[in-house]
């Protein structure tokens, strides 16, 4: 186990290193000067521009910038471009070109918003998806199966902004059951937090549940045809128990992998939902930073997303080997 973890951690570091290098390279291959954007489009003087470039470290060669960035993550770094000297403590991802805020702080601000959105949504879409999938499998070919399949596929093929808009119109405009959502921290008022997030959760679930319904249905049908299910029927276990204990366990185990990865990729993949419901999450941050050529923020978000995916992959493997003893970690 220790050996396995060591292997995974080393692998993860390599992946993140390559990822950050690629982001740096792509960034410099793109046209546009971030200093120009900071300085302003028209009023900017040449010397002013140069000062900003020096301050941001843009005058240095790319490999040196990258090196400083790496050192900053491990040991922190000190900026001394202008008259004042700023020290940025250890996991230092630099400062936003645009706002001057530390990137680490920006990420930490946005992370709870994104987590609230996707974890809550994930619970709903997996629960609904799995329940419908099991139901479809047990009533295969019957009306319930067709309706469940039809509904989830319809949801899956509808754009999230359309679903979200409809939800807003119905629940906030016509019925007025809910306030127009914004973000409320869980730690401040859990009820308000949930009230504000329920619509985005539902919107995400409508779009995402279909995958789980289809997978669960297929996997359940496969498991039901296996020999050990016949064994337990032949030994008089009630159908409820055959399905609830033995079939479900076999049917859901394969979902571990897809579920974990799904959760990880959603972290920065819910930009549309975030904008629609006014949630300042990581997806929005990523999009705006790309638009503003804000390299430190782009790299920061990308690395965070990458790290989460790498960790989720490892977690999926470990969970799988716990759920299915035949699978050994290697």
């Amino acid at each position, binding site marked *: 186990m220790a*050996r396995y973890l*060591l*292997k995974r951690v080393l692998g993860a570091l390599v992946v993140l290193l390559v990822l950050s290098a690629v982001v740096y390279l792509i960034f410099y291959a793109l046209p546009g000067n971030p200093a120009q954007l900071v300085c302003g489009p028209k009023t900017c003087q040449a010397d002013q521009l140069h000062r900003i470039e020096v301050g941001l470290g843009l005058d240095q060669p790319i490999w040196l910038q990258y090196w400083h960035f790496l050192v900053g993550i491990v040991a922190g770094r000190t900026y001394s471009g202008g008259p004042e000297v700023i020290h940025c403590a250890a996991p230092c991802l630099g400062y936003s070109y645009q706002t001057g805020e530390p990137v680490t702080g920006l990420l930490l601000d946005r992370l709870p918003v994104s987590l609230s959105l996707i974890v809550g949504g994930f619970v709903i879409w997996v629960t609904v998806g799995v329940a419908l999938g099991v139901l479809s499998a047990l009533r295969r070919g019957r009306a319930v199966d067709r309706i469940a399949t039809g509904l989830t596929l319809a949801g899956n093929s509808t754009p999230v902004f359309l679903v979200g808009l409809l939800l807003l119109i119905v629940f906030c405009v016509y019925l007025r059951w809910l306030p127009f959502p914004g973000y409320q921290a869980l730690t401040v008022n859990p009820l308000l937090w949930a009230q504000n997030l329920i619509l985005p959760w539902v919107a995400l679930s409508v779009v995402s549940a279909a995958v789980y319904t289809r997978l669960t249905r297929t996997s359940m049908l496969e498991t039901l045809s*296996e*020999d*050990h299910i*016949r*064994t*337990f*029927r*032949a*030994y*008089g*276990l*009630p159908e409820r*128990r055959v399905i609830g204990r*033995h079939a479900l*366990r*076999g049917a859901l*185990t394969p979902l571990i992998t897809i579920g974990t990865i799904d959760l990880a990729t959603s972290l920065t993949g819910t930009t549309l939902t975030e904008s629609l419901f006014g949630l300042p999450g990581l997806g929005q941050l990523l999009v705006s930073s790309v638009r503003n050529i804000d390299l430190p923020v782009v790299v920061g978000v990308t690395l965070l997303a990458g790290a989460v995916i790498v960790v989720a992959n490892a977690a999926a493997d470990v969970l799988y080997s716990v*759920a*299915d*003893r*035949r699978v050994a970690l*290697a």
Partner: protein
Amino acid sequence: MSTGKTSAAVGTESTVDTPVVSVADLSIEFPGVRAVDGLSFELAPGAALGIVGESGSGKSATALALLGLHHGTGARVSGRITVAGTEVTAATPEQVRRLRGATAAMVFQDPMSALDPYFSVGSQIAEVYRLHTGATKQAARSRAIEVLDHVGIPDAARRAGDFPHQFSGGQRQRALIAMALACEPRLLIADEPTTALDVTVQAQILDLLHQLRAETGMALLLVTHDLGVIAGTVDDVLVMQHGRSVERGPVGRVLAAPEHPYTRDLLAAVPRIDAPRQLSLADRPTTPDPLVRLVDVRQDFPAGHGLLPGRRRTVAAVDGVTLDVRRGETLGVVGESGSGKTTLARMMVRLLRPTGGRVEFDGTDIGQLPDRRLAPYRRDLQMVFQDPISALNPRRTVGESVADPLRAAGIRDERRIRDTVRDWLSRVGLDPDRYDAYPHEFSGGQRQRIGIARALVRSPRLVVCDEPVSALDVSTQAQVIELLAELRAELDLTLVFVAHDLAVVRQVSDRVAVMHHGRLVELADAETVYTDPQQTYTRELIAAVPVLDPALAAERRAERAALRAAG
């Protein structure tokens, strides 16, 4: 007394004389097929009945019907089935459910998949026991350990916590039998309980069933295609063909003096380990001159992989085998699963590159030849595979499959290809006009004939057959073996015949090689190996083969018991 009072009926005096199973005019119809047609039989308490038949005879469908397991599958069951006082065909699902596992328990064919891989073996047995007895968790666990111990799982208390994949095939079948025993049933239904097992393990499981029957007094219904398995295990036998019972009687009488022609055919088709070969067509003088010479060949597979390169752990599938395949002979290779016989076969035709030693074909070491230089030898080295279903591409016509080796040889003349393939199809006993048919349109035996045609179409000198008949019914098996014997004589082939079935190997081979744990244990003339085996392992292997004579079977069983007691 109406149905469903099973638990009340168990143990009362009236049940002693009434049969534990009574089937009257049973018919089972699947959409489009009548699997069982007007079957009637009875089984007395404590008695043992064997149902034999080839695939499609309806024997398994009958076994499943006894526990009402066709419910909800689209099969139509009519007639009357009474098991231990419960009329299964009329009872409510709840009544049938109470019967299952408690009064009548079932053991299935494939022990590999019959247990839930996600739960420990002990917990699965305990679950069934608690369900039927309402015992506490603690008591159920003890019972699980008790029955596991009873069926001969060593260190049962610890092994109960293990998962099915940590058990060997034989142990899994024992565990399933333990589950069946947990509630002390009055009837045990065993559906091909040993078909998936090695011959020595098969003997152990059959001995166990025999012993348990003597100890617990439960009745046994044994369903199998193997007449040898029947001979030593049951009192009465019922022979099924096309869903009907064609003959029923005491096992000794039916096997010694069968009355129905189908039973006679079935018996005639069974390869006899106790009879010398009959199929050899005018034994040709085989020279000791070798066509293939294996010198200390080995095949090491990596076992797991480490973080750092170098010092890899390996498992030797074939661990230094030296043997000659003589020109024109048929060399039988026998061994249990994991003995390395298939790996050895694959190295002979260079489907696998040996990791050590030499494979000389006609004087040239082909073991390490690069593919380019191997090409000229390919036409001489052919293989017939075990599973005739998966060895043919289901999306291509059988004619195209047989033509593949010709195209691979660079032949482009379509007329010539088609003529050659048609010729081969008829030589292996198929209608050449079925060139454009697909594999699923053929039966198992016909598919194996197609596989043979494909192997022979380029006139090879060496044909290695890996378990060519193990997936076939006995009568089909006999036909395919006969075909191979004819072709061998006609084409001057050298054959290597790999199989786990010692009786089949005896019927076809001039010499026999016995493999065990990747090593060659014994190699001699077929007659010598079977009548005067030199090695202990060979003797064990031969002693484990079921025989058709019930008296002899009992004798063998006693011998095995004595061996166990001694060792």
